[in-house]
């Protein structure tokens, strides 16, 4: 299946789900008698999405790039590194509240450097630590933005 068709199918399913969820948007008694409610725009968009994705599925693919299969396009891609970086970003999002901005950012950056093949620890540290501390300094000292320390420090009684 051409990659564009796969995309159209995904969008068709998404539009259907969006339309079904639009049915669940709560309406007050007064709103139910109105012409334009909070549901009107989502309904219209769901219908438009369905029509457009169906058209894409039915009509022949013109764009030569879109005709390629997903397998063809993704062949030889470095999935392992990309997935590791995504995992790193998720981990960063999960720990930033607990470890605080400085420590979690340094860990994230050094993890990223490592995943991408860098092995010189000194270089990694020299690239990550000054950058994060400089950013923290600019935000907290120069711009006066309060960056809360990690909650872990409160729990351990350090702060």
């Amino acid at each position, binding site marked *: 299946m051409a990659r564009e068709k796969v995309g159209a199918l995904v969008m068709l399913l998404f539009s259907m789900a969006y339309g079904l969820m639009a049915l669940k948007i709560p309406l007050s008694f007064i709103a139910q008698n109105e012409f334009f409610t909070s549901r009107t725009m989502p309904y219209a968009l769901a219908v438009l999405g369905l029509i457009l994705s169906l058209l894409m599925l039915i009509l022949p693919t013109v764009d030569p790039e879109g005709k390629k299969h997903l397998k063809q396009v993704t062949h030889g891609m470095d999935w392992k590194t990309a997935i590791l970086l995504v995992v790193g*970003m998720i981990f960063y999002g999960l720990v930033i509240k607990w470890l605080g901005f400085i420590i979690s950012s340094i860990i994230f950056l050094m993890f990223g450097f490592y995943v*991408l093949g860098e092995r010189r620890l000194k270089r990694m540290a020299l690239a990550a630590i000054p950058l994060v501390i400089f950013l923290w300094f600019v935000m907290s000292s120069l711009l006066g933005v309060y960056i809360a320390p990690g909650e872990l420090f409160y729990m351990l009684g350090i702060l």
Partner: protein
Amino acid sequence: MWDGMLSGMLTGISTTMIPMNIAMVLFGCFMGSLIGMLPGLGPITAVALMIPVTYGLDPSSGMVLLAGVYYGAIFGGSTSSILINAPGEAATVATALDGYPLARQGHPGKALAVAAYASFSGGTISVIMLMIFAPILASVATSFQSADYFALMILGLTAVSAFAGRGGVLKALLMVVLGLMLATVGTDQTSGVQRFTFGSLELLDGIEFLLLAMATFALTEALSIVLKRDESSDSLKPRTIGFKNLKVTKSEFKQIAPTIGRSSLLGFIIGVLPGAGATLGSFMAYGMERNLASPEEQKKFGKGSLRGLAAPEAGNNAASSGSFVPLLCLGIPGSGTTAVMLGALIAYGIEPGPRMLTANPQVFWGLIMSMYLGNVFLLILNLPLIPYFARLLAVPRNFMVPMILFFSLMGVYLVTFNDFDILMMVIFCIAAMALRLMNFPMAPLLLGFILGGLMEDNLRRALLIYNDSFSFMWERPLTLGINLATLLILVFPMIRSFIARRKGGGKPGNEVVVEV
């Protein structure tokens, strides 16, 4: 008219010429050049990355900085196109066609200098045209009603799709619809009803536009570099590139001067069209120049022609300024980058549109004047700094990619201080990456998302005024005119493919495929 323009220019000069704003233009051009030079990163990413920096500034300084970033990023993109044949984004692809061969022939300095002069001239000419036409259009647009705005937004969103290139119309329209769908998430401002929040408190205010912009552009572009194993920056050794000869001879100037004039004019007109933007501007200018050249001259195109290099450079810079016309006068972005800037304006609490000229003249004129200043700065600063800037191209991706990811995540986190936003960015990044792999463009999505709320508000208001009747779509001559233009734009790709089929027997012709 001239009095108004003159007083506006004076307002602009007094806004721009304060030390803080001069510093902002300088900083914006510098940062834009640096970010735009990185392979894979274009003006949209550059502007999105710099928005968090502007939140602490007053709106005029913020916009001045972002305009500098926009210009700088386009110039930076040209540098990577010329030096390593790695255009940062679609708008500088045409620059690489002749710029890279010229650099390979041993004239990287000359190629960069021609690009700089052409960009400066294109930018300057179009800023002058912007000064003349923007206030006229803005004064006309003050009579616009909700119905006209709704129709205009439909026109803008449709135009994006019309310029999406062969076979890209439906995809672009679908992405616009997806953007509009995402804009409905959160609390409905009129009724106070929660929509698609799944009971999450974090989604009550809807999705942050900056979050979406960073996730769909900056994060996905960084991950694309990894996925495609793009190591173009690793292979460059800038010290081996000679920059001794930045000089352009008098005869060469004479050769490119008419090209620059023509391309600037064409670029500006294309830029004004909603949805066209710098990419189409550069390709059209290149195409026009090639068609105008003598058969002998035509043979040089693609092999290092100075005219072939000057045309797209002047064209894309002029179109960049031109795309500010619909943004400033109608509140409708003309390109992906101006869509991000519209989001920034809304975040500053400024309502873009015709009233901006009277309500916030310092932002309106300050922005226009800063564009001129930005062009001057880019010329006098970037030429001598090119050899140093080029060294950035040699930063290995081992370091570059995690830093881009970090700055993107931080750009959002340091504004909202909500760790949920980081996780949401990752989700959007994965979805955007999947859509990109399926060959769907991202800029229409952002445009739809930014215009979604405004569009719903205007439609609601228009229906209220016209007693729940859709007759507003044809009762007012202005609305009718805009709707007819939308219809024309929708039919345009069909006519184009019909003509192409008649001419080329069904085979795709020598047309330009543009990713908006």
